[in-house]
């Protein structure tokens, strides 16, 4: 995918998230996105056994 197509796809994803942004802002976010993608790839999918991350204990709710 070339840069222009990549930016168009990114702009579409941002629009879907509620952001209709000028091209300049999308281009800058694309630079950040290029760093974000490999960073997210470093975090391997974690097994559901590691579920304490989503435990909810109503008795301790404050």
């Amino acid at each position, binding site marked *: 995918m070339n840069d222009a197509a990549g930016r168009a796809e*990114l702009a579409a*994803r*941002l629009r879907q*998230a*509620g*952001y209709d*942004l000028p091209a300049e*802002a999308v281009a*800058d*976010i694309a*630079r*950040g*996105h290029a*760093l*974000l993608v490999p*960073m*997210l790839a*470093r*975090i*391997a*999918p*974690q*097994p559901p056994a*590691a*579920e*304490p*991350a*989503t435990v909810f204990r109503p008795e301790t709710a*404050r």
Partner: protein
Amino acid sequence: MIPAGIAEAASLFRARKLSPVELARACLDRIARHDATLHAFVRVTEDRAMDDARAAEQRLMRGEARGPLDGIPFAHKDIVNTAGIETTCCSRILAGHVPARDAHAAKRLAEAGTVLLGKLTTHEFALGGPSFDLPTPPARNAWDSARFTGGSSSGSGTALAAGLVLGATGSDTMGSIRSPSVFCGTTGLKPTYGLVGRSGVFPLAQSLDHVGPMARSAEDCALLLESMAGPDHEDPASSGREAKGIAAQIGGGVRGLRIGVIRHFHESDNRGSPAALANLDAALAVFRDLGAEVAEVTLSPLAEWHAVAATIMLAEAHAVHAPWLRTRFAEYGGIFRERVALGALIGSEQYLNAQRRRLSLCAEMARAFERHDVLVTLAQPGEAPPIDAVSRWGVLELGSFAAPFNVTGGPAVAFGTGFGEGGMPTGMQIAGPAFADGTVLRAAHAYQQATGWHARRPPIAG
């Protein structure tokens, strides 16, 4: 005459050799002289400062001083709410926002008798900087005004270095207390998560956010932490604990202390500058001479810690700002809005993976703390860069040495270890397991007493 720190000022007050009013006046005069260059303050509260100072002086004269912070010139990062004083997070979004109540930490510090000099520059909402498109300019480093202060507690770091204040609040989500402490040659503690209440402090990423003390020495940070720490019923993450007695034990030394050095963090994962590395090695030699046991530790690569922290930070920050960001995008500074909009592209699966990986990283570090009392690494790879050369996307680039301890929530203190090739401070951090805040401060204090680097001040501090 402005003393070197809080402990010295308190001693001079007790000896009647200095009064809180004299000290407040001297600090205000210094702010008037230097802040047009440094931009440490976004708001100076001169009338409030003089009122506070007079009240502290009367208490001292009556023999009713509230403790070592009574009469100490202080200022808050501009994300910390202060009753009746505009608090904007250095953003147009909150222009005109005047809180009705003090933040929890601000209230405790006011009750301890601190003298409020004003509000300090922050990167926008503690993330977007250094920015030149905000209502107020970015803070400048007191050692060289062409250099970056670090951030986001940028005004806190440079105000301390320049001797404009003796203590300040900072907040730390991925290093925002520790980075300015190193770049400005001061001392900052990211306390254990939940030890200092965060109600009334504008959130960046709630599961990583910490509020903590910034000062000129570890001893002063201990004095501030004792006042700041305590149960905060409006912060669901509050540990409910106090931190009393930490300052009294700070002189306990490091004999027998087991120090683990995470050498791969700063030698291969994100290699430090020659001077930063040499100064860290010299610091480790000091610790050995003081009787500590120094060994090497291996953890997961720094990039993994950084990835987990940055993913969580961007996703949580986006959740905080999305309503404003979608409707008032152009009112934010460019750096903040584009960084945080990126958080919209992080899915729930990715966020939860990061939180799950966080738990296994925490377990890994807990195992390291079974063999070591504290862990040591660089706090920054080198000296402060020129302010106009700071990378816009640095938060996603090289691994942050600070991030691992936001991931675990354990305490980490950062401070200067000398100077680099460019004449700017270099620094290190000492981290501990949860609630070992006293231990990391004791180790930093031992080093500072042995070396005196913390007492070096830039020429601007007179």
